């Protein structure tokens, strides 16, 4: 009885020493666990904070965090599972030895349970403690990025702690179960020979290689050529899917196929400089392709995530300008409207509330939906692919235009001015329904409507006409073509729009907007009043939240990347150690060996980086297109963001390579004389 108790007591001890002994693989696993808990806890504790749901304009940020946490869980689970499986592979030998020395499977089970418990406790404690320390700081960062008021108190909620602990309990439980199954189904001899297994040649090498090439090319073509239309999101996911598949096949089969071609050429292969490199690379690629694919995909994800979020955030002012060129707009029915009354009221209220009114414009316009074909605006297309050629055509008079823009344009009998908020109209004449008009000039800018060549998604046109008569003529012809019954009534259905900017303290602005809104709503001509400061604050909260999540996610991706890299270095190290000794015995000098192995390692590690950079370049085309739907048109900002982030990432990648390479060299221990090992 006594003996039995002792045996059960020794198991946790064995578990603990096991963890310590294989520290090189175990500590990173625990560190990854801590970091995972840390990020999850940050998300949880911010989400649980009542403040975030009370703050004005925080709805978007809150929603993004909510989605972010789900995504985080989806990423962390398989990642920790992968790390764990690497770990168990490395430890099989030790466990096999215990088994042979007389530990039964159930004892090993207890041992593994203790280990899992230990790493779970370490991860959760470490993660939550560091999370508690940093969550206030990160919360403030979030508030700053989203432009939300910073003067709020951050409180810890117990739910955040329990949520985190429970989620990771399941993660570690799943890992433990998989370990138990893995050990349970294997025989001790298999456990002993654990890590070593010959690599099989991938079957159907050439077919897979071509599939890889074709899918990757397909993904790139879709990414580069796709344009903004209803299909773009589908295209986006298709491109991502194809690129991942393509990367996988190219790395696993394509590289092997390529090296085999080199190998087949006896002249090239049996050159001293190439011989070891080609055969070594072939072996490495067969063994490590999968983790290289992971490294490549994670790298791409980090770069793209950071590029998207940072360029959106940096381009926020432009986006806001495109979305809301003015701080406020008042839409009224023009036949009842008294333009002067509105202007006077706005100025008067401005004075009362101590805010300055800037750049006030007031104009009448009618918006007509037309189908555009070359220079002709006809009846709108119904359905199908033609849909995207439907545009809104705004008609305003020269008088309004000259007053707004402070110009003195003159138009002849049949002449108009044309403005497009998207790509240039670029025709000398314009056909509007049945009317043929001469374009005197195409305007390149218009105060009331920001223009960008890339605005394909919701471009609209302005036609500035000579006088009210011509305006009426055009509207009538549109009404006839579109079968409007009350043509006279329709011709008078213009809106009077007053738009302006305000300057002043926030409180004053709020008061001003409140009273102006009340006044507008009381008017008979009232249609709509827009306080765009609200809209901008919402946008800011959304894009700031995106950036915040982007940064946290990039950190998580980077951690994944670092760990995969590190584990790969370790497994390569153990293999190279043997080869190193053998090659020295067979007659290669230490210097030669160091040189060739170093070159192989570099090649193997920088292949994923090359892949990631190429994916990023192709991806940028698509991001550029996608961003136009968010009215982000600043291509050069996107490219410079991408360039900066890529450079920073390459540096980071290089550094993490150097850092992990240290472990590699420690394992290989260059310069150890083969005689000592013999």
């Amino acid at each position, binding site marked *: 009885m006594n003996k039995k108790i002792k045996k059960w007591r020794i198991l946790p001890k064995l578990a603990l020493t096991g963890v310590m002994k294989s520290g090189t693989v175990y500590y990173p696993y625990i560190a990854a666990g801590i970091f995972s808990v840390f990020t999850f806890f940050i998300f949880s504790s911010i989400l649980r904070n009542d403040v975030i749901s009370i703050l004005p304009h925080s709805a978007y940020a809150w929603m993004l965090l909510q989605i972010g946490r789900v995504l985080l869980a989806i990423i962390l689970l398989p990642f920790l599972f992968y790390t764990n499986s690497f770990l168990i592979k490395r430890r099989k030998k030790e466990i096999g030895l215990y088994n042979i020395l007389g530990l039964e499977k159930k004892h090993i089970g207890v041992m593994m349970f203790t280990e899992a418990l230990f790493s779970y406790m370490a991860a959760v404690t470490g993660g939550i403690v560091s999370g508690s320390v940093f969550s206030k700081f990160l919360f403030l960062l979030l508030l700053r990025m989203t432009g939300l008021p910073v003067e709020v108190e951050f409180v810890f909620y117990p739910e955040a702690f329990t949520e985190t602990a429970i989620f990771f309990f399941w993660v570690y439980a799943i890992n433990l179960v998989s370990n138990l199954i893995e050990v349970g189904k294997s025989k001790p001899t298999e456990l002993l020979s654990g890590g070593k297994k010959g690599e099989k040649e991938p079957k159907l090498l050439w077919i897979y290689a071509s599939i890889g090439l074709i899918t990757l090319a397909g993904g790139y073509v879709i990414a580069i050529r796709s344009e903004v239309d209803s299909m773009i999101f589908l295209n986006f996911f298709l491109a991502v899917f194809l690129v991942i598949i393509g990367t996988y096949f190219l790395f696993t089969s394509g590289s092997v196929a390529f090296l085999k071609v080199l190998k087949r050429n006896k002249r090239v292969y*049996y050159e001293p400089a190439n*011989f070891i490199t080609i055969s070594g690379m072939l072996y490495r690629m067969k063994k490590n392709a999968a983790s290289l694919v992971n490294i490549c995909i994670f790298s791409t994800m980090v770069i793209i995530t950071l590029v998207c979020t940072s360029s959106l955030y940096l381009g926020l002012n432009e986006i806001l300008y495109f979305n809301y060129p003015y701080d406020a707009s008042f839409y009224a029915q023009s036949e009842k409207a008294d333009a002067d009354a509105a202007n006077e009221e706005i100025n008067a209220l401005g004075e009362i509330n101590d805010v300055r009114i800037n750049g006030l414009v007031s104009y009448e316009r009618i918006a007509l939906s037309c189908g555009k074909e070359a220079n002709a605006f006809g009846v709108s297309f119904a359905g199908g692919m033609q849909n995207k050629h439907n545009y809104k055509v705004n008609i305003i008079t020269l008088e309004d235009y000259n007053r707004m823009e402070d110009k003195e344009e003159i138009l002849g009998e049949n002449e108009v001015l044309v403005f497009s908020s998207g790509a240039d109209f670029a025709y000398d004449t314009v056909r509007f329904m049945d009317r043929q008009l001469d374009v005197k000039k195409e305007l390149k800018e218009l105060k009331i409507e920001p223009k960008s060549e890339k605005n394909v998604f919701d471009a609209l046109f302005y036609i500035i006409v000579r006088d009210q008569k011509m305006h009426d003529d055009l509207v009538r012809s549109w009404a006839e073509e579109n079968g409007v019954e009350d043509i006279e009534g329709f011709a008078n259905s213009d809106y009077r729009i007053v738009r302006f900017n305000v300057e002043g303290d926030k409180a004053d602005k709020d008061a001003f907007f409140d009273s102006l809104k009340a006044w507008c709503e009381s008017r008979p001509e009232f249609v709509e009043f827009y306080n765009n400061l609200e809209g901008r604050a919402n946008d800011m909260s959304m894009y700031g939240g995106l950036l915040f999540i982007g940064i946290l996610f990039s950190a998580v991706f980077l951690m994944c990347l670092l760990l995969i890299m590190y584990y790969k270095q370790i497994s390569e190290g153990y*293999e190279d150690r043997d080869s190193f000794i053998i090659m020295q015995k*067979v*007659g*290669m000098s230490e210097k030669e060996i160091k040189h060739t192995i170093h070159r192989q390692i570099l090649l193997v590690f920088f292949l994923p980086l090359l892949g990631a950079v190429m994916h990023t370049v192709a991806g940028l085309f698509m991001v550029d297109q996608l961003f136009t739907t968010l009215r982000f048109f600043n291509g050069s900002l996107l490219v410079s963001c991408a360039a900066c982030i890529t450079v920073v990432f390459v540096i980071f990648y290089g550094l993490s390579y150097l850092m992990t390479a240290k472990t590699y060299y420690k394992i290989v221990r260059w310069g150890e004389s083969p005689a000592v090992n*013999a």
Partner: protein
Amino acid sequence: MAVHFRFFYNRIKIYEREDIRMALLEVKNVKKIYTTRFGAVKVQALHDVNFSVEEGEYVAIMGESGSGKTTLLNILASLDKATSGKVLLNGKNLSEIKQKQLCAFRRDHLGFVFQDFNLLDTLSLRDNIFLPLVLAGISYGEMDKRLSPLAEKLGIVDLLNKYPYEVSGGQKQRAAVCRALITEPEIVLADEPTGALDSKASAKLLRLFADINKSGQTILMVTHSIQAASHAGRILFIKDGCVFHQIYRGNRSDEEMYKMISDALTVLQTGNSPAPFENGEAS
């Protein structure tokens, strides 16, 4: 320890038979002292080793583990340096070869067969065999020409495209022998070549060694297996860092050799019995 040796055994002098030919390999007064990392403890692995090997000889060096035979082989292989003494191969002193040229020297003049085969998993057997030739910059045609008769002789023609992890231990060792022979070395150094093989594969390999020797190849093998040694033309016994006995085959059969070797070993071992007493006195 040294005292105990001089005191107890009359070391058997091995006279060089200068009447026939100049010796291919000469080992003169070789001494090796290992120093532990911090220099605190010095271990003398080889005391004063003298012997020579002539061209076409098949010599086995026997000794228990710890007797210094692996140290000796490493020195012969130029993988390690003697603390003092000389090793001459064809009259060339190994310790005078510069570090930079050592690899090339080893490649061109020595062939190695190891206990654990030392084949690279990254290369097919063919490429493993080619490795020393590729490093020496020999053309593919020439390599292929050299390989075919050798592979035939060693019975590995069908295995050449396989990888080391796909074949058995005996097959691996035969490929390793092929790698050692393809450079046409002056001497093949074999370190416990049957150590990792089963008895059947061992027997096959030893027959192979005898055949190779018959066709003129000089072989020096280190082993503690009586069976392995019984195939050799001459057996040197090494103990505690000294060569102190040798047996010539003459016209004896393998079985007779086996008997002689085991007798010699028994004598050596029983002769060792007073050692603890002497040890006590010496220290």
